[in-house]
């Protein structure tokens, strides 16, 4: 492994009032795939003055370049998707009632009875269902498919929203002791981390930060972002499910994916990418050298922006790192503040010790 490079100043991420305020803005925002404007604006406001170049591409990715100093700098693309899973209104049925569909992977069992916000004005509404008084025992055994659910905006709904508008859960960030509780931690934690990396970019690399769109519907933004940046290395930063709960039968849980409090989750393989082993080793070596807790995300299906990045042009060695989070793609997920800070710390430390030797093949 390459020797540790001296960082100009120690980077010690913290989660104080200012940081929580930014994270709250990010998780509370409505940015369902295909309409990421709200997050895009927050990102661009935050990074004003920090970047060498900042632009919005044709799909809506925010592409930020932060140049380093010195010779032979690697061009490192770090991608965090801005979009979240959610809903799209598809039909105005009058009296404030809208038919809708899900965007991205959402379990229909998660929907009934949830408060939502609709459109760029965050119009409040609820996903309703027949009251229990009126249901039969047989009905109560069935999952209501999304086609039978409606978003209810109340009288005058037609003046406040229209088919095509996006909607998401109305959850606001709460801090429960050591835990962050919010919607869309997947992937506002990644967006938050990438903002902090740009603001504190190590100077040994050219940091190519891609705040991507449409990840939840098939890694679409990252594909064109990677084509544009044409980087030497790709890193997707995301949030990945933790299913670290006790097994119902008291047996050993072998399908946990990740554990809360286990530190940043480093990917070896998911459904879309086999991580480049040189990059996996680099992250693990950095974590060990810096005494940062870390874990492998269990190899399993699923995908991150790395799935698109590594296949672009002549190929890009790629890896993913995620903050573990419980109950992803629902109205409220949970992640640990320590896991979030350790992920940011690991990414910064790893980037700061990166040099071109990492791409040599030993064979």
């Amino acid at each position, binding site marked *: 492994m390459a020797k540790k490079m001296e960082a100009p100043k120690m980077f010690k991420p913290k989660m104080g009032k200012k940081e929580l305020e930014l994270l709250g803005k990010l998780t509370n925002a409505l940015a369902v795939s295909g309409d990421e404007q709200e997050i895009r604006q927050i990102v661009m406001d935050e990074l004003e003055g920090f970047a060498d170049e900042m632009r919005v591409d044709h799909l809506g990715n925010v592409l930020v370049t932060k140049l380093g100093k010195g010779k032979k700098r690697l061009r490192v693309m770090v991608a965090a998707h801005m979009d979240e899973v959610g809903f799209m209104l598809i039909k105005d049925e009058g009296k404030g009632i809208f038919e809708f569909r899900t965007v991205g992977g959402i379990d229909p069992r998660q929907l009934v009875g949830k408060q939502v916000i609709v459109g760029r004005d965050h119009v409040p509404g609820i996903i309703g269902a027949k009251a229990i008084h009126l249901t039969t025992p047989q009905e109560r055994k069935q999952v209501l498919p999304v086609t039978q659910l409606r978003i209810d905006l109340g009288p005058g709904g037609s003046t406040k929203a229209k088919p095509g508008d996006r909607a998401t859960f109305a959850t606001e960030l709460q801090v429960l002791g050591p835990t962050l509780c919010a919607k869309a931690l997947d992937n506002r934690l990644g967006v938050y981390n990438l903002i902090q990396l740009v603001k504190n970019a190590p100077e040994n690399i050219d940091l190519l930060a891609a705040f991507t769109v449409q990840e939840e519907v098939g890694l679409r933004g990252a594909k064109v972002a990677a084509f544009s940046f044409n980087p030497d290395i790709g890193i997707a930063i995301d949030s990945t499910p933790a299913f670290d709960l006790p097994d119902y039968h008291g047996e*050993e849980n*072998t*399908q*946990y994916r990740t554990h809360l409090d286990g530190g940043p989750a480093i990917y*070896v*393989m998911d459904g879309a990418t*086999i*991580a480049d*082993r040189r990059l*996996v080793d680099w992250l693990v070596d950095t974590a060990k050298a810096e005494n940062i807790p870390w874990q*492998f995300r*269990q*190899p*399993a299906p699923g995908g991150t922006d790395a799935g698109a990045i*590594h*296949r*672009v*042009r*002549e*190929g*890009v*060695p790629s890896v993913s790192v995620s903050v573990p989070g419980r109950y992803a793609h629902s109205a409220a997920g949970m992640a640990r503040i320590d896991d979030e800070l350790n992920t940011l710390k690991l990414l910064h430390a790893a980037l700061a010790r990166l040099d071109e030797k990492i791409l040599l*093949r030993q*064979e």
Partner: protein
Amino acid sequence: MAEKKKDNLLELIKRLVETPGPSGQEHQIRAAVREEIEGYADEIRTDALGNLIVRVGSKKAGGMRVMVSAHIDEIGLMVTHIDEKGFARFLSIGGVSPLTCLGNRVLFMDGTRGVIGMESIEPGTMPTLDKMYIDTGATSAKDCPVQVGDVCGFERPFLDMGKRLVAKSMDDRIAAAIAIEAMKLVKKTSPNEIYFVFSVQEEVGIRGATTAAYGVNPEVGIAVDVTGVGDTPKGFKLNVELGNGPAIKVRDSSFIADPRVVQWMVNEAKAQKLPYQMEVLTFGGTDGRAIQMTREGVPAGCLSIGSRYIHTPSEMVDRADVENSIKLLAGLLNNKIELGEL
């Protein structure tokens, strides 16, 4: 006992099929291929994903830039969890059937060995991979020699049955062998600039050939891969049979071969008086798709070798098919390529 005459083709096949290299872990097989081709190449490079790209010849008047792709990865397993007793849970890399796992032996990239066992299941039900584990001989999690993310392949020696050849990774090392042998037959007089690509990560979604094709930017492309056969008891309803010659792919579920490339291959087989068979596959996919879909699109086809028991540790091919495929591929590369009208 009389000394057996050295059989170079069998030696090459044996070396290639016995080298481990599940998708993403192609360094050993890449090094082996590189050694085999070093004396025949004009240029060798390894791209960002690990594809070995070998140029032979340069473009002369009337010649074309041709990509030949044979994938060097194979299916395998990856460890997902080490339990308290030291058993390693796993998932598959590429299409591994649970039916082919039980009792099999696996070889990890660092040389560690293991055997596959299974939880007890309801009699009469199909096993699933999540009920299986690799036993490395460990007595607890502490002394387990493997960890989450470690990769293994099936371990089986090469078997020469005379007419038929059997190995764990005929898919697609037999194609690598054919490409290497064809490379040796490329003549100085060939007008074509030929890029032999030994591609990675085909089994997980034709990933290596995607980036290699972009880099090579060919004018015509041929994948070389194995294909399913219809000559086993109550097997697939397929036209291809072992021993009936190289199979010229018309379609599979990932792509429709360019009809001009199909015709070019048929013409060459006829010109050499080689046996050949047309392949219409109802499933599957090859590097041909990646070549066809790169950049602005490329005329692409696939030379297939009929194989029984694909994606089991005992994939079987016919030796004559292999030898005829080498002749067919070399002929295609040595002559001026005439692609007719679409």
